[in-house]
């Protein structure tokens, strides 16, 4: 084969295009470009983008042979060795225009291409141009600002001196970031999965002999291989998901067989040789079908597992009815009595749609057998929890399982709890060699989703607008397997009352099995569903009673210091102040004239609200101060772009009185790292951060005690600052003290810290909530009454960070989450036809782009200082997704007088609602939409 010769980042190179026919593979493989990575593999996201002769090229969809004789530029080529970064790279770093960094090389290059053709673009042009690439994390505002700033830097209009870069920033913006998929070990095999084409079927037989005989195939695994496992199923509380299908498949895409082979192509070829004899069974596509009398059963017998403990007012049941995997009920007060005497009772029903996480880095696991045990690199948010699950599944002691966790290419819940790690381990053990299983984005769509839900709320209200009692019945569509559904049911049921004062509550949430993609953790974790229904209904109630929606909320909001519910922790945000501030920003009470006769404008507000920080959590941390006085943090929070590592660095820097640049973060490795229960529930800053702070305090104490002995002065007369011990005006570098005592070979100081949120049976969820996470949202919309299209004119999304340790990260979290919610509200959803997923590729699954940004988008950070975390901090990671959908629903009603209760609000649905209203007004009676 004749090599394809071209110029790569300024240097001549030649590759065998037959061996690597796709440019992305040629660049990331033989050419060694770490900045070129494939995410969607479909031309849809732009993560793989490079420039060919200065023009954007989608390298996952470009044949290598077409670049012969041309100049290819990757993000690495923008910054010559040791040279200054490009203006775009600099603006991206200084403007925090990335989080996980998966999209960053493509975004940077796209911006370069824009500025090369138009050095001074307007904001609208930037928005339109950058709308070519997907970022799942940032919400685009920061990217847009960075491109505009890069234009100013390039032109010399702005001359501010550059700031120094943190290592992870440099890595992301120059294409040297290292993700799990980049891990390679000798003898590594590639795994692929054969997935069920049936939504529900019995497996009669699986014939794998032909696949096993294919040259290059090393191991084939099916349900028969589960016989030797100590526990063949996993799941949170309800362990119903087999490592690989055993007797049945329960959704399209359910793994049926897996092959490990010398490369991905061979593994795929082997899968095509596997014959599976299915006996198709009737399937249930929806919650209604699943609950119908005589409905086909997904599981004929109870699953393994044990429920977590609950506290006051809660009953929880495992698999209480056919196809119901879990039921949560929270009761407080005498609901019947309050309803009997209430002035008004309002009954409304809401349908919440279902999104995919669609992380640009999908799930990837590398498993390597090690003696009796194994070693794992996995894109997982919960390494220690995963270790425990794997120990249960394989019947191995935990110390024989070692899990490394690298920086993740975003997660949003996709990577929490056990996923395909046991299957990868099974393959690796059978093969006796390391195996890598990297899901494609298409497979990600079939692996986990958010929970669709129907929420029926009955709310009793006094004539003056006082909220009295609420009864709710919530059905979550859990899909085929439990995953984290039981906990999501707890959360949606406990949160559906919102941050208001109630006399009585009776909220039931059921997680129902259907033959669709399993549902599990998703940013917001039940809070999004609860807030959509509750905050929509509050507005409906206000309008029905002729009350102002803001006033209704102000009248009923819980003030700081008052427990959320009896026995639980107190509200730690000033909800009134936040609401008033957001209402003012949105110009609440003022109605702007429409811009055209067929357009109508309206405003809406909402307060999304959830508990955060996890339940009864335990986290440990260790801070080492090395011989030169600098510090290294060890804790198991997984960084997935949320900025946790930087928050920890700043916490330690504050305690040790040094620059955060002198603090680094060790990689997560369960053999070495301090224990943590996992990175979820926005607990990193508030919970693990507190453990880190305590560890820093501890090491500081040890250093001062040591120095006190050396200097012969009391420890409390000393200070530790900038790597030196100070006594009055005297300052002695720690290094010198260490040398003096320990000799030239040096020493280190170690501090441990930990935090346990105590259990408490008076609290409904068996531990008081660590902190409360409000999301005040104000929005102005414009509804096209002829087409039903909704445009966002102004979106204000606010959160309380307690104290914002890394303000730019806080802002990025609010904006990214809010844009996810914008997508969910207006278009983004998994669309099923029965049990068949229609939006099953990245091109068909529409994700928000910069072109979907509201005309004005403001994120507001409050620092109300009441958090339980370090220095009063709270997390904000999920806040922005909570309130947007209901605020938009409320604004639409304000604009055109129709109430939409089913997400997403597509133009079709809006127009149908307008038609129904017109018919109703014409006197044909109310019309169901």
């Amino acid at each position: 084969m004749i090599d394809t010769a071209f110029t790569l980042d300024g240097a001549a190179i030649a590759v065998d295009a037959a061996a690597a026919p796709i440019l992305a593979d040629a660049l990331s493989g033989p050419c060694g470009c770490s900045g070129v990575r494939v995410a969607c593999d479909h031309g849809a996201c732009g993560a793989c983008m490079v420039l060919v002769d200065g023009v954007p090229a989608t390298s996952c969809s470009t044949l290598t042979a077409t670049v012969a004789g041309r100049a290819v530029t990757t993000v690495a080529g923008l910054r010559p060795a040791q040279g200054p970064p490009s203006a775009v790279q600099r603006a991206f770093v200084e403007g925090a225009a990335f989080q996980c960094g998966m999209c960053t090389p493509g975004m940077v290059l796209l911006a370069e291409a824009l500025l090369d053709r138009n050095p001074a673009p307007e904001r609208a042009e930037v928005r339109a141009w950058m709308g070519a690439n997907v970022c799942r994390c940032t919400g685009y505002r920061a990217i847009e600002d960075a491109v505009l700033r890069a234009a100013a830097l390039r032109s010399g209009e702005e001359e501010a001196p550059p700031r120094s870069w943190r290592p992870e920033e440099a890595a992301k913006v120059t294409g040297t970031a290292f993700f799990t998929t980049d891990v390679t070990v000798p003898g590594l095999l590639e795994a692929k999965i054969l997935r069920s084409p049936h939504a529900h079927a019995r497996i009669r037989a699986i014939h794998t002999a032909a696949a096993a005989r294919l040259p290059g195939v090393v191991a084939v695994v099916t349900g028969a291989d589960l016989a030797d496992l100590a526990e063949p199923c996993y799941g949170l509380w309800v362990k119903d998901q087999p490592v690989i299908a055993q007797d049945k498949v329960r959704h399209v895409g359910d793994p049926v067989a897996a092959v490990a082979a010398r490369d991905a192509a061979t593994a795929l070829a082997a899968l095509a040789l596997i014959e599976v004899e299915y006996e198709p069974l009737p399937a249930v596509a929806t919650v209604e079908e699943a609950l119908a009398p005589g409905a086909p059963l997904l599981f004929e017998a109870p699953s393994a597992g044990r429920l977590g403990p609950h506290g006051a007012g809660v009953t929880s049941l495992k698999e209480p009815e056919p196809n119901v995997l879990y039921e949560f009920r929270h009761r407080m007060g005498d609901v019947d009595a309050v309803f009997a005497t209430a002035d008004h009772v309002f009954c409304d029903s809401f349908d919440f749609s279902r999104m995919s996480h669609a992380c640009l880095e999908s799930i990837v696991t590398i498993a390597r057998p090690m003696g009796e045990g194994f070693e794992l690199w996995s894109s997982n948010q919960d390494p220690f929890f995963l270790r425990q699950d794997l120990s249960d599944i394989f019947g191995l002691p935990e110390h024989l399982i070692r899990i490394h966790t690298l920086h993740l290419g975003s997660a949003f819940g996709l990577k929490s709890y056990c996923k395909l790690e046991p299957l990868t381990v099974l393959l690796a053990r059978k093969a006796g060699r390391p195996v890598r299983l990297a899901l494609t984005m298409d497979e990600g769509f079939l692996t986990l989703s958010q929970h669709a839900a129907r929420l029926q709320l009955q709310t009793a209200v006094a004539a003056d607008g006082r909220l009295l009692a609420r009864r709710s019945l919530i059905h979550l569509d859990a899909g085929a397997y439990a995953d984290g559904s039981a906990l999501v049911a707890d959360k949606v049921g406990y949160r559906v009352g919102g941050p208001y004062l109630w006399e009585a509550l009776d909220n039931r949430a059921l997680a129902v099995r259907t033959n669709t993609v399993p549902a599990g953790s998703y940013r917001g974790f039940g809070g999004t569903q609860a807030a959509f229904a509750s905050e929509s209904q509050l507005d409906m109630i206000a309008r029905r009673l002729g009350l102002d929606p803001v006033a209704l909320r102000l009248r009923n909001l819980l003030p700081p210091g008052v427990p959320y519910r009896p026995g639980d922790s107190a509200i730690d945000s000033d909800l009134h102040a936040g609401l008033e501030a957001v209402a003012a920003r949105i110009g609440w009470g003022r109605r702007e004239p429409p811009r055209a006769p067929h357009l109508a404008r309206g405003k809406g507000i909402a307060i999304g609200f959830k508990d955060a920080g996890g339940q009864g959590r335990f986290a440990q941390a260790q801070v080492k101060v090395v011989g030169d006085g600098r510090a290294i943090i060890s804790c198991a929070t997984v960084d997935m772009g949320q900025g946790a590592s930087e928050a920890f660095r700043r916490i330690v820097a504050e305690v040790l009185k040094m620059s955060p640049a002198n603090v680094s973060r060790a990689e997560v490795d369960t053999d070495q790292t301090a224990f943590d229960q996992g990175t979820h529930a926005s607990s990193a800053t508030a919970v693990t951060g507190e453990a880190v702070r305590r560890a820093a305090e501890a090491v500081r104490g040890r250093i001062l005690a040591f120095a006190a002995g050396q200097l012969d002065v009391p420890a409390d007369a000393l200070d530790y600052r900038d790597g030196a011990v100070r006594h009055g005006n005297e300052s002695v570098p720690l290094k010198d003290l260490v040398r003096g005592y320990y000799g030239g070979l040096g020493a280190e100081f170690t501090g441990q810290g930990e935090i346990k949120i105590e259990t408490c049976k008076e609290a409904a969820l068996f531990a008081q909530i660590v902190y409360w996470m409000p999301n005040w949202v104000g929005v102005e919309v414009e509804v096209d009454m002829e087409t039903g299209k909704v445009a966002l004119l102004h979106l204000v999304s606010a959160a309380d960070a307690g104290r914002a340790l890394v303000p730019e990260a806080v802002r990025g979290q609010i904006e990214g989450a809010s844009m996810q919610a914008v997508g969910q509200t207006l278009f983004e959803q998994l669309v099923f036809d029965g049990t068949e997923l229609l939006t099953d590729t990245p091109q068909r699954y529409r994700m928000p782009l910069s072109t979907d940004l509201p005309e004005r988008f403001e994120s507001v950070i409050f620092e109300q200082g009441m958090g339980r975390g370090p220095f009063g901090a709270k997390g904000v990671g999920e806040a922005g997704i909570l309130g947007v959908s209901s605020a938009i629903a409320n604004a639409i009603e304000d604009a055109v007088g129709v109430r939409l209760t089913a997400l997403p609000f597509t133009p079709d649905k809006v127009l149908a609602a307008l038609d129904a209203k017109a018919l109703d007004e014409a006197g044909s009676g109310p019309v169901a939409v």
Partner: protein
Amino acid sequence: MPQASLFSAPPPVSPEGAPRLVAHRTRHRIAPFRFLRAESFEAADILLRANPGAVPMAGGLDVVNRMKEGVTPPAVVWLGAIPGADAITHEGDDLVIGAACRHDQLATSPLVQALLPDLAAVWGRIASSRIRAQGAVVGNVMADVPAYEGPALLAALGAQLTVLANGRSETLALADRQEEATAPVLVTALRVPLAAPSGVRRLVYDRSLRPALAVALSLDVADGQVLAARAVLGAGHARPVVRAVPATGRTLGEMAAQAPDLAAQAFADLPDFTTPWAGRTAYRRRVAPQLLSRLLKEAAR
């Protein structure tokens, strides 16, 4: 009911009786193929005929995506290296767009901006900046994907394809391409007719309701009077639906005043939509005339 794809070609059919390979769309699935670089269209034609099953390729976005889905062409004939294949020229009464001309070249071409400015402006808004940079105008048309915008816009302008088959060059109207007429052809260029010297040719386009639908309108005007108006509905059918707007002979003012009626007449008999996953039929029938009515008013300004 499995659906055909909104964007890409329908998933490849598995061998008779074999189960569908679920979620196996990946570049690792691409079977070995021969990459053939054509030096001229004539050479491309010969290469295509000499390699049965071979496909012509411009930007490659669709060709590569289809190979990831399991389509296995034995050879790919690349047109991108043919000298001048991406050129845009003015020949007689036509604008001639070469088969390798990329969207972005069309949108930014000074010649197009001078001769048919609306075409350049509209083309700069389709797809996305990255896709426009790589995808070819002809590739967009020949991909036969209902959601792609090229066919509707070009049909509105009455564009023609110049094709080379078995060494013979012929011209065929884009609007006449029928769904079943998918025999392999090699397009060498697209011809877009320009307005008569005394007249003006407008092209206006509303893509705000994609993926449900998009509407294009071309208008030939002379001395303030409509000579011809052609409306096209895209994204709803395998091929765009082209309709004459009964506005001929009216002044622009009259056309604007009667826009709702004219739009309703033009789109009175829309065939059944064949892309049901992208929107409800009732909705599309309802809003298509709305968008057209707005375009009629916009074009009259």
